[in-house]
């Protein structure tokens, strides 16, 4: 059961509710990758989700804000957008109109 300030503990099926699920940034709602792996704290009884692994980043359980059809997390200083930012800076930003909301 993830321990976060806002949500009470829930029993989850790691494979059904967590793995490969979409991550959403709580701050602005943008999509931040998929959950590639789940780190469990097996010492606790029952076992507790310690962190979510996505790409190169590790999201500790405290950052999980909501678990629904997607998992919302508090991102703050984590760099979940590394690859997208790279592509943005090297490719997309060079095309005029990249920063415009479509009219």
């Amino acid at each position: 059961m993830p321990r976060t300030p806002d949500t009470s503990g829930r029993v989850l099926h790691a494979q059904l509710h967590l793995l490969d699920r979409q991550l959403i940034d709580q701050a602005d709602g943008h999509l931040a990758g998929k959950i590639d792996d789940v780190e469990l704290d097996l010492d606790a009884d029952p076992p507790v989700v310690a962190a979510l692994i996505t790409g190169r980043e590790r999201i500790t359980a405290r950052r999980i804000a909501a678990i629904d059809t997607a998992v919302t997390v508090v991102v703050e200083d984590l760099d979940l957008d590394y690859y997208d930012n790279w592509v943005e800076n090297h490719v997309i930003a060079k095309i005029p109109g990249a920063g415009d909301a479509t009219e």
Partner: protein
Amino acid sequence: MKKVLGVTLGILTAIGGFVDIGDLVTNALVGARFGLHLAWVVIVGVIGICLYAEMCGRVVAMSGRPVFDLIRERLGPRTGLLTLVASFLVTLLTLIAEIGGVALAFELASGVNYLLWMPLAAFAVWLVIWRVKFSRLEQVFGLMGLLLVVFAVALFKLGPDWGELLHQATRPHPIGHEDWSTYAYFAIALFGAAMTPYEVFFFSSGGVEEKWTRRDLVTARSNVFVGFPLGGILSLAIMGCTAVLFLPAGIQVGTLGQVTLPVAVALGKIGLAIVLIGVFAATFGAALETALSCGYTIAQYRGWQWGKLVRPREASRFHVVMIVCIVLAMLTLLTSVDPVLVTEYSVVFAAMALPLTYLPILIVANDPDYVGKETNGPLRNAFGLVYLALLVVASLAAIPLMIITKGGQ
């Protein structure tokens, strides 16, 4: 008003998705060779796509997530990857056919070689995706594509023997020089054209772009039940036109010009002008949809930010995928490969990918995790399974038949 505009998503998806270059070519071709003896496949295809598109729409409205997003979750990484690869490749092939179709439409109108129109068409597709708002895109091409109803008008004007047409439609067997292998082959082609994968990806992702919630369930459903049957009727009209005009004359359809000729015969230059605008709108709209779908599939599988609902720089990888796909499509076409031939193959390959595309939809639509209380009832599931079985048969038979008939000859 929003309800009316909401229906246009279905119409675009249907016209652009149901009557794209694949449908134009396949229905015209089949009509000229088999009359209406394969018409039943179109009807079966419409029911199938309605069934599954409704499931997609429901999943989006209830969960806020598009179907492809959930494929990896429910099928596991390996099957999910297989689905991705198959769907993506088929969609890319379809994109090539659509851009080719746009160029052919311009060629037919102007007499200027289609290869010269190609880069312009590809650039235009990209530019519209880059700059134009999703809803505007739908409305414009959805309404313009409705001009294809001119095929139905032309069919009436040609004054066919309706009794004869009905006679053909109720007798599902090959005629003339055709045999059961070509009959089955083109049944599969029609199936592929009617239920082609990108239609459900686009409809599903479009629902997110339009920010559907459970309140939009009605909109989603009306889109499906108005849009796709309309597309089906137009497909039958296209088939009917060539059945009436070409079958008796021994003319086989191999070019876009021949597809549109019945309309000119029936309605003259005005009819031709209308049908060319309609063909342009349908193929250009479908090019937009397939390009977006190429982006949707990969981005949703990987969990990247996607969609036209954010600025391009906020979904950089999504846009890069689409740019690469459009460029690849253009380069393929610049090799002078016949776009109509590409189209004919794309629908058969689409048929092969169908089971992989549709199985996850059936699974997800039954999952209360995503659709809450709105899971499939037993009747829907029964139909869904019947269709899945049909799709598996079609998918397995596609390659052997392609070999036996040498690509439908």
